């Protein structure tokens, strides 16, 4: 719960968080080391200085850490935990649904744990989707198109094998497809961050919601065009958020573009925890206004209190069928437990 300076209580649903293990013990090779190192560079580069973590803690944080950072020190009411396997890089997966679900068991009212699958596994991917539905009753999945798998160095959302998986997701009611565009390496003749497969998949699967994490960065411009045309495409603000601190004017330009093209009903807050923590992001976001000249260039779009409330939680709540009033009441009856010091 975020309390505004004038006392209003804002429901915060953090749309993009992880409970990962990137520790050296779990790394399978140099790629695993480089993957977490890259995350750490994002963390050290875009966090305020007083929010920096030690490397070891960043590589692997505890169940107590995530609970405290999100809900006790942080303003989140709920958080969506995304699964990312990277089985070619990590022995037990980078953030597996089993490990995340076991952590979430301690406070099930606060977590939504999403699954993940790799369409290149063919029939096994379909079996795995059934397994995740039956065992974890997932409502959404996280797709990482840049994941390596043997000789393959990436895949596209409109690959035939992927379509089979999405058909099954739709049938089972797994409606929210979060997509992260990392660099797809091969074939080298393509734009590594191309987002046009989103366009195809979203057109062909109207019954699914396509949440493009990081707003398609580094293809924000292409993403905006696509999101305008497709009613079921949403933008996740993870990675764009921390710019509010380091480059506030750019943040204004990016948000103005997104509000203009994508719209206030289709943007979702995400801290990208543990790369960043939600406390400072939400505080700064609530204080933020798009500079007048930037807003004027985009038809006067602005981050009003109502717009911020939608972005911080109401939009995501709709996608995950969460009755916000009921949830607020439920959480009021189970306040955050602060461990005895």
């Amino acid at each position, binding site marked *: 719960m975020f309390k505004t300076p004038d006392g209003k209580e804002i429901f915060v649903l953090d749309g993009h968080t992880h409970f990962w293990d990137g520790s050296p013990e779990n790394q399978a090779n140099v790629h695993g080391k480089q993957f977490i190192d890259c995350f750490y*560079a994002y963390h050290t580069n875009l966090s305020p200085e007083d929010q920096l973590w030690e490397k070891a803690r960043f590589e692997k944080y505890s169940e107590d850490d995530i609970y405290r950072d999100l809900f006790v020190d942080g303003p989140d009411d709920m958080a969506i935990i995304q699964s990312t396997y990277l089985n070619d890089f990590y022995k037990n997966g980078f953030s597996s649904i089993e490990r995340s679900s076991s952590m979430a068991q301690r406070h099930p009212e606060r977590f939504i744990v999403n699954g993940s699958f790799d369409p290149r596994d063919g029939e096994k991917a379909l079996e795995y989707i059934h397994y995740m539905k039956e065992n974890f009753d997932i409502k959404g999945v996280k797709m990482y198109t840049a994941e390596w798998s043997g000789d393959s160095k990436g895949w596209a959302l409109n690959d035939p094998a992927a379509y089979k998986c999405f058909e099954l997701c739709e049938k089972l009611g797994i409606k929210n497809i979060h997509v992260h565009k990392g660099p797809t390496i091969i074939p080298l003749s393509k734009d590594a961050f191309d987002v046009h497969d989103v366009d195809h998949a979203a057109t062909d699967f109207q019954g699914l919601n396509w949440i493009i994490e990081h707003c398609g960065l580094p293809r924000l411009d292409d993403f905006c065009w696509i999101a305008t045309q497709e009613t079921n495409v949403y933008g996740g603000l993870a990675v764009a958020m921390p710019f509010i601190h380091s480059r506030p004017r750019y943040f204004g330009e990016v948000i103005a573009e997104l509000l203009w093209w994508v719209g206030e009903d289709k943007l979702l807050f995400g801290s990208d925890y543990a790369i960043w923590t939600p406390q400072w992001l939400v505080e700064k976001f609530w204080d933020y206004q798009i500079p007048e000249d930037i807003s004027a260039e985009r038809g006067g779009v602005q981050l009003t209190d109502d717009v911020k409330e939608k972005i911080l939680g109401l939009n995501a709540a709709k996608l995950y069928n969460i009755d916000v009033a009921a949830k607020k009441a439920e959480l009021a009856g189970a306040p955050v437990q602060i461990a005895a010091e």
Partner: protein
Amino acid sequence: MLVANLKAELETDVWECLDAVTDPELDEPITDMGFVERIEVTDAKKVRVEFRLPTYWCSPNFAFLMAFGIRKEVTSIPWVVEAEVQLNDHCFGEKVNEGVNSGRAYHQIFAEYCDGARLDEVVDTFLAKAFDRRQETVLLGLQALGHDAEDIVSMSLGQLRRVVFSGEEELRQLPRYLDLLLSQGLASEPHDLAFPSWDGDEIAPHELRAHLAKLRSTRINMEFNGALCRGLAKTRYKEVEIGPDGPTLIDFIEGRVPSREKLAARG
């Protein structure tokens, strides 16, 4: 001392020629972005350039393009007899290094990794973005000088060349804009229009506003990526160590050499 001076001079030659190599995605020189890690000149004829990208996962095809761009620029310096390019700490680094130093043509190497396909389409896409970004800077500069839409869209190449800009960004981007305009054949004679679209179309006065909005989207995207890359590069370069022979020119340019005060404080 004479030898040291000469060496520094040659390294400066190399450094300056690398300004012509840009990151295709950002349209910024790799020298400005801080990607060049080390330049080594031996016997006044051999050059070795090491570079590093902001992350291990940066687009390999662009890494290829930059590596070949470095080789092309360095070998065009008259005194250079031998050039070696090395990309450090990258997921595709070994293949890039093997390819760029093999002496074979870029297309030939590249085709091996994509079933014979060429990168032309992607290169063209990013060239279009670079063109839009450079053009926007010049257009906004003209607006700031009081030119109206009618004036701007009908301006000829000759007229544009006579405009006196004072803004730092306009001064930097104008020659880069003209370069692309000419090299792409979008204008050549003084009476040709100075501001066609990338597709070679004329822009009508009433379309200028919408045209500028499109250019702005491209620029915001590129600047966003640029800001991210600069930051990540800076973080990553903290790992770079000064070589056994002491700091080189690049170490000084990139601010990797601690100041005397800091050294003194460290004792």
